[in-house]
């Protein structure tokens, strides 16, 4: 048996998704609204389900409803619906109690563009 370590440093370009990735870094839910039917997708869809290729970037409030959640050794993840979006999304749940069904997007900073939901500040305080 031969042991071999291979390290790979990637330089990946998000291309058309750059505004979405920049949004995650700043903690904004940057969605795409179709110019034809106004359907809003988050994460953004390049081509709208209506077939239109043209869309505009729009920032959602960033709050979301947790529809399903999974917990275990792999971490906490959910299928959630962001307010103002017509699509749902899977993401990481960060410090959202099992009894809580709402949360707000958390900034990923300069790290990998991680899409995650954290507890709402007012609900945490109140």
């Amino acid at each position, binding site marked *: *048996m031969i042991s*071999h370590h*291979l390290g790979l440093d990637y330089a990946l370009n*998000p291309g058309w*998704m750059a505004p979405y*990735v920049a949004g995650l870094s700043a903690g904004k839910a940057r969605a795409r609204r179709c110019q034809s039917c106004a359907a809003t*997708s988050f*994460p953004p*869809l390049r081509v709208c*389900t209506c077939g239109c290729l043209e869309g505009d970037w729009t920032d959602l409030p960033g709050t979301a409803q947790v*529809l*399903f*959640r*999974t*917990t*275990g*050794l*792999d*971490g906490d*993840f*959910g*299928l*959630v*619906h962001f307010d103002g979006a017509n*699509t*749902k*999304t*899977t*993401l*990481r749940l960060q410090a959202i109690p099992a009894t809580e069904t709402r949360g707000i997007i958390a900034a990923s900073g300069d790290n*990998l*563009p*991680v*899409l*995650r939901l954290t507890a709402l500040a007012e609900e945490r305080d109140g």
Partner: protein
Amino acid sequence: MQVRDVTVTGAALTPFNRRKDGTGFRDWALSAFEMALERSGLEHSDIDALYVASESDFFHLQLNPASVLATELGLTGVAATRCEGGGASGQVAVHTAARAIQAGAAKHVAVIGIDPSASSLSGDAVRTLYGFSFDAWTDGMTGLTSTALYALSFQAFAAEHGGTEADLASVTLQNRSNACHNPGAHLPRRDSPQDIADSPAIASPYRRLHCSPLSDGAAAIILSRTDATPRGRAGAARIAGMGAATDHMHLGARADPGFFTAKQMAMQRACAEAGATPAEIGLAELYDAYAGTQLQAIAALGLSEDVSRDLNDGVFAPAGRCAINLSGGLMGQGAPVGATGVGQTATCALLLEGRYHPALQPDTLPRYALADTHGGVCTLSAVTILERAERAA
């Protein structure tokens, strides 16, 4: 264009497990290929083309594996193509190879599926890589694991279509129990529902025993133009219909995140090609990446109107109307990714010929068997319907 009929003249699988004997994927590929070729009654020189299924170079650190295997298998000179479709890679290769024969571009072809999914990298490394087999920018970098995505998809399925913890246990126990009669299976286990409940929670509702393992191994089939089938192979099963389809790569963008729409579409296409209905499928090797995935597959393929009821009535048990995963499936037999779809098709072909492992071989053979494979959370689905030869059984 005249469409040629295709017969599975040879089929073989190596054991699926975690290799500790110093062998590598080239050894397993050769072993499966030689067995399949011998069963086909053909010679190396009869093979016109080689199709290799392997999900990722990350596993074996061999780019361009199809050309390497052409040499390793003693087939230098043949046309060689590598086929990839995530977890569906093996079935995509079967389709690509069969279409080449149908189109008249080849008479006899070899399809080899391989992957060292267990022994070459740590389980954590493989799980990280698997995370990038969904949308790498949204799911992969977020750290969503395959188990978490499948768990969310199953929860959505259960909320809409039903499916209980007892159903998950039933699938788990049945598949692993079948594997106990398959000498090549990775996880021949006889667990109890309590053992399942006591195994670690990976991503609720999935516990470790609800998951398929990472395995090493290879599978091979030889496909032949039916009118060129060698003497003595008249009992070999034919490919009756194939279908493939894709769904949206984001679970959250699907109208029903729990329903495998791509699988339903692929099945409809395969049935149309075969002139068959789901009710006529009497044996099926399904893509049970997780216990709940099998329930989702049964529903999408149209094999049952009420999955929980039929499961509890024994419809999918070895003696049932549609025996599912007699091999043990991915959960029991194992999952060397590229080999999975080829192995499912090989298993169906051997079963329809009456040449499968004796303890699992049904006494009465149905007309049709189904091999069902997918990649992503059923983002890419590929299914094949095989038909028993008139003279078999």
